[in-house]
């Protein structure tokens, strides 16, 4: 029997949420890092480290939750390199981030060798009683795995902390004008280390989602550019955790769509379809930069700049 168009749309939307979730984790973490003034372009590497750490620990313990925790810790530890090199040693953030990606790709491949071909534990779909029976919406949003639900909780919390708390005010101030925050007793170093480590942990979670939920295996370089796509989505989200959700699902939609279009029998060459997420991301980025040029809003003013108090 042919699937009805509605069933297909619901399936694509449900897949869009799944596909967008790893990016959502990474995006929220990177928003915090960038809001504090530290650009981390090493997300791709961090995701890979999270994916392999999550998979190997989850695989050996036999429990995906332990794997996810391990992935977050691994991501945080790995991002510590970036924090030390850029905050303490004040090296160039872009170069350090690129190197982090290369190192993460190498390390994950190195430790991942024996894991290739293994099938690990994964997260099951849980239907939330009540909510999941809402027509369409319930199917799309509330028949997902535990990590998706975790991301639903994370977004409002991240937004609230950023805009309503003293910590959030401190983070935003450090990213806009570190000297000001410093003069009022806010430790620029602590805030930035904290945000970079949080960003690393989130990227680790995003990676773990790929190897423990989206699939249940380790594939070399399985992040497939999602770390870079996240960097674009941070700009699209205008550094706001709530808008990150929209961006992540938009990308997830493109990803889900390209996987399913062929099933419907539309004649577009496979490899062109596979370009869709990347091309869409570039388009989004172009639109976001046009918007920010027009409205003159942009990145945190001190993004990318090291801070030193005693320099003169």
């Amino acid at each position, binding site marked *: 029997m042919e699937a009805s168009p509605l069933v297909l749309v619901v399936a694509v939307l449900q897949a869009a949420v799944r596909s967008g979730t790893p990016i959502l984790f990474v995006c929220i973490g990177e928003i915090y890092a960038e809001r504090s003034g530290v650009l981390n372009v090493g997300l791709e590497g961090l995701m890979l480290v999270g994916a392999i750490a999550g998979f190997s620990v989850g695989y050996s313990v036999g429990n995906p939750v332990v794997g996810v925790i391990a992935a977050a810790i691994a991501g945080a530890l790995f991002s510590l390199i970036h924090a030390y090199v850029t905050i303490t040693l004040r090296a160039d953030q872009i170069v350090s981030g690129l190197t982090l990606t290369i190192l993460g790709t190498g390390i994950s491949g190195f430790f991942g060798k024996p894991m290739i071909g293994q099938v690990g534990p994964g997260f099951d779909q849980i239907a939330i009683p009540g909510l999941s029976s809402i027509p369409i919406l319930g199917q799309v949003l509330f028949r997902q795995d535990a990590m998706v639900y975790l991301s639903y909780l994370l977004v409002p919390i991240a937004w609230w902390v950023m805009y*309503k708390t003293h910590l959030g*005010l401190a983070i935003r101030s450090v990213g806009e004008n570190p000297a*000001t925050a410093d*003069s009022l007793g806010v430790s620029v170093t602590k805030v930035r280390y904290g945000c970079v480590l949080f960003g690393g942990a989130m990227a680790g979670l995003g990676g773990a989602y790929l190897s423990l939920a989206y699939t249940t295996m380790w594939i070399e370089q399985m992040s497939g550019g999602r770390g870079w796509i996240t960097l674009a989505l941070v700009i699209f989200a205008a550094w706001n955790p709530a808008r990150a959700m929209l961006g992540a699902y938009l990308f997830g939609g493109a990803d889900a769509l390209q996987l399913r279009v062929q099933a419907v029998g539309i004649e577009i060459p496979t490899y062109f379809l596979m370009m869709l997420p990347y091309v869409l991301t570039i388009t989004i980025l172009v639109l976001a930069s046009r918007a920010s040029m027009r409205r003159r809003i942009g990145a945190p003013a001190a993004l990318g700049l090291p801070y030193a108090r005693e320099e003169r």
Partner: protein
Amino acid sequence: MTDDKIAVALRGITKRFPGVIANDSVDLELREGEIHTLLGENGAGKSTLMNVLTGIYRPDAGSISVFGRTVQLKTPKDAIDLGIGMVHQSFKLVPTHTVTENIVLGLGRGFSRVKLDEAQARVATLSKQYGVKVDPNALVWQLSIGEQQRVEILKILFRGAKILLLDEPTAVLTPQESEELFHTLRSMREQGHSIVFISHKLDEVMTISDRITVLRGGKNVGTVLVQDTNPQDLSHLMVGREIKFATFPKKESRGEQVLEVEGVDALNTRGLPALKGVTFSVAAGEILGLAGVAGNGQQELAQVITGLQRPTAGTVRVQGADMRGKRARHFIDAGVSYVPADRHGVATVGDMSLSHNSVLRRYREPKFGKGPLLNFNAAIGYARRLIKEFNISTPGHATPVRSLSGGNLQKVILAREMTTRHHLLVVMSATRGLDVGATEFVRKTLNDHRHQGGSIVLISEDLEELLSLSDRIAVIFHGEIMGIVDAETARIESLGLMMAGQRLSEVA
């Protein structure tokens, strides 16, 4: 001796930076309820000393006591906790945040909610108590410089500070705004606050201070009661020799119009109107001063008449030639030289050598190369000439300009711009941050240039400098020219009123 009336005592404070001693065992006592002026020329160590007292710098030696207790100030937080607050020369504000957000920053911990409503109410009370008016909901970048300064003061009062340090607060204000500030300071003194006021303007120092401490070369060279001294003695203490600020004779005859600006509109970097219908002209052999509080469109005007920014309306003519649609390089070719305010950020490339920097705007000239090739030997020869003629003190032409002092860097820029074949020189904040010697040199150079028939647009926030050098002074406010007056007959009060937004017809 009792310490009970002493708010702050600094003893033997020494602070070194690589290559310089900024403070050399300085003693200073601030009494409770006094306004104590710290006087000294640029580079005397005033700001460093205050940064030590606010925990931003850690001294290499010396001790600090506050209200009789010896303290260690490791971080700015320690100073705040002791009731010490500072208004820095460049304001420490987050421009994209509101006034209240700026005020409560750093006052709460972690995940606790920011209670903006309560804070706003307290800000309103404080505003009333000290007569400091500002809208607590406004975004800081939308405020004028004077208002931003009030936010800084409120920020300190909000933290319950008893000791206020103000680093050259009047440098950015109109004379009238300065009066208002003094009023606020006196009212704070009445309410028991102790204030350190940093300045190098002798007349206002005589007006506002109870006591004055003079710093020179990082050392305390004396503390006096205001009634026991006079401006001459102070200036002698400050510089170590007699200073006579030369009065510059104006040139009698002026030549043809070199720069004509007509009805120019322009936008700032945020896309908001920065210049509105600006019209003026400058003749050969004339210095036109442009007065105004910082941020009223001076930057945009300088960029428009040097080709770095295109006006949205109006025309700019250089020697009669319409420059519409022309880029910066065409302005350079047309003979427009430019000494920008930002020496490190715009006028030079810090990591490049002095010789490379000396051809920064001239590298296209035939004398510095052939076809696509650049002749670096010619650049070196030229740099050597500049070093000699302008007395630039540097290890050599290959030194990266980053390591030059402010005065020497300014000499490099001035030398380059003035030795280029040019018709018009645009100079912005030419002497800001320079010591007395370098300031005199720059002013004399500009004056000589005028007498050789050069024309100069001199943009400055220093009214005295404008009055002593300019032939005519234009005053800019909110992007509009309030009026143009003859420097010989201009009165400082009416210039101040124009800087605050009154038109010449209203003040004359």
